[in-house]
């Protein structure tokens, strides 16, 4: 059996496992998805009120609606929770049996993400379609080429957010406050990744600072690509370049954190 077929079978089994577990927790997942909808819905509500007098920073009411719907979908497809359960694995001894078997624990985490996002992303998409049937404002023009690019951007963003979450979780090898660091990151990303408002509405200094970090590539770029706010070749190229560069940097950080972390784990136990 070729290596590719072998890995396909492994991921098939891991994803199936994660999918079945999610099935057991569907009530909880419904609520988490609800939370994922409520946050942008409230932000939209406020911007809707503000933009009642006229467009704000180039965004009309309709623009805000499309932005936040796109944000809800892209966020659901890219968010990552791994720092929480990696932290728990490390602190409560659940990492041990995973290390004793011939599968890197990261694959289990990736499969878990894929199953969860497939399920919840699909739900959000269906919801969006339903709303779009009744409310023309949130409809997007069908454009196969752009949507293919959106798919790529979302995949890159999801991979990066996964690595950020995983690496932060690995900090549990050294500190008990790994989840606090993740929450700090989430708090910052509220602004710098565009969850509270499109980046164009931030004070220029802040938006400028954000451009030097990975935050816009987590959410804002794929969202703008989806809504059509990013069209031109220049912005497109810059966006993808930023995604790839930061993905590679976080991949490096993850590998370093894992190597060092396992070394430390082997020295001081867990």
């Amino acid at each position: 059996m070729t290596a590719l077929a072998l890995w396909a079978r492994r991921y098939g089994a891991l994803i199936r496992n994660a999918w079945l577990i999610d099935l057991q927790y569907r009530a909880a997942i419904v609520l988490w998805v609800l939370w994922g909808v409520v946050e942008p819905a409230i932000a939209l509500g406020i911007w809707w009120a503000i933009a009642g007098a006229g467009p704000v920073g180039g965004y009309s009411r309709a623009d805000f609606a499309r932005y936040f719907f796109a944000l809800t979908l892209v966020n659901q497809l890219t968010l990552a929770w791994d720092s929480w359960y990696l932290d728990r694995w490390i602190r409560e001894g659940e990492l041990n049996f995973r290390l004793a078997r011939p599968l890197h624990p990261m694959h289990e985490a990736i499969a878990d993400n894929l199953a969860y996002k497939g399920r919840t992303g699909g739900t959000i998409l269906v919801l969006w379609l339903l709303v779009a049937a009744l409310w023309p404002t949130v409809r997007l023009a069908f454009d196969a080429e752009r949507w293919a690019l959106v798919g790529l951007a979302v995949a890159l963003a999801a991979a990066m957010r996964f690595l950020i979450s995983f690496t932060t979780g690995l900090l549990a090898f050294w500190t008990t406050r790994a989840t606090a660091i993740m929450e700090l990151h989430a708090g910052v990303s509220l602004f710098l990744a565009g969850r509270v408002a499109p980046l164009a509405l931030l004070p220029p200094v802040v938006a400028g600072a954000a451009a030097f970090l990975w935050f816009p590539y987590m959410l804002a770029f794929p969202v703008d690509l989806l809504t059509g706010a990013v069209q031109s070749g220049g912005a497109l190229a810059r966006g993808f370049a930023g995604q790839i560069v930061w993905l590679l940097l976080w991949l490096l950080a993850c590998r370093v954190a894992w190597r060092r972390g396992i070394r430390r784990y082997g020295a001081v136990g867990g």
Partner: protein
Amino acid sequence: MHFWGMADAAAILADRLSKVFRVKVRAPGLRGAVQALVRPRYRAVRAVDDVSFRVAPGEIVAFLGPNGAGKTTTLKMLTGLLFPTSGRAAVAGYMPWTGGSAFKRRIALVLGNRQQLVWDLPAEETFRLNRVIYDVPEADYRARLDELVELLDLGGVVDKPVRQLSLGERMKCELAAALLHQPSILFLDEPTLGLDVTAQEAIRHFLRAYRDRHGATILLTSHYMQDVTALASRVLIISHGRLLYDGALDALVARVARTKRLELVLGDGVTREALAAFGSVLDFQFPNAVLEVPREAAAATSARMLAALAVVDLSITDPPIEEVIQRVFALGAAPPAAGEAP
């Protein structure tokens, strides 16, 4: 019971294994907390101290010791979760810490917290997952699963969600999950802990049967005596990180136990005082009594007693193994640096 007959190729080899942890020393109170932050001080805890032993293929060996003795730490070093501070270990020909996937396929580890089964799904799902993780061919998987279900009496259990199973059933499923890839060496950490007597016996019976069929090497840690007497051919007694004894259990008893017990069923008219003339009376509930006498004098004392008193029944036994072990611990109980394994 040695299936491979290669006397020199040890399945498990521990050569002067040591593990020293640096633990932060912290004085109590606020000042101590500040000091721990600014100028941290450490002391060395020797969790495992110069432990050497070998286990031949197909042996069942028990690691016995009180909590914190270093059993689990040694186990972790043998399975590659911890690396030794000094000394070396070789398991199935690999160095555990660097063994990688090839090493991990040859062993199985079932730890104390027993959380390897996916909690919300039937055990069957964990089995399927393990099959893929260890790349077990379908035909082998079916055959092994059937055998394990039969040996462990798991019919009707593997398709119920794990959270609905009793502790004993869960442990059996954990074992099944660990053996699907037919490891040559099985490491078990407290496998019978917390189980009721029936489940404990079932597990012990299974482990013996499995070893007999497949020649697997089994190293288990325990603080239950019955695990040792019923299962292991050899016992390694560890306390405060040091190996106090390595060998068969009856030899240990003979060497360390200095007394014998006389269990008596007495006839009419025998009083406690009359009995006390022959040895120290441990228990007296007419007509039963237990007397303790020096080992060498056991036979002679019995003869005298039978002649002098109305004894209906008499049997000579060893003191309970727990007591023997306690003596071993007490004898080896002066550690060079105070500390127990974290």
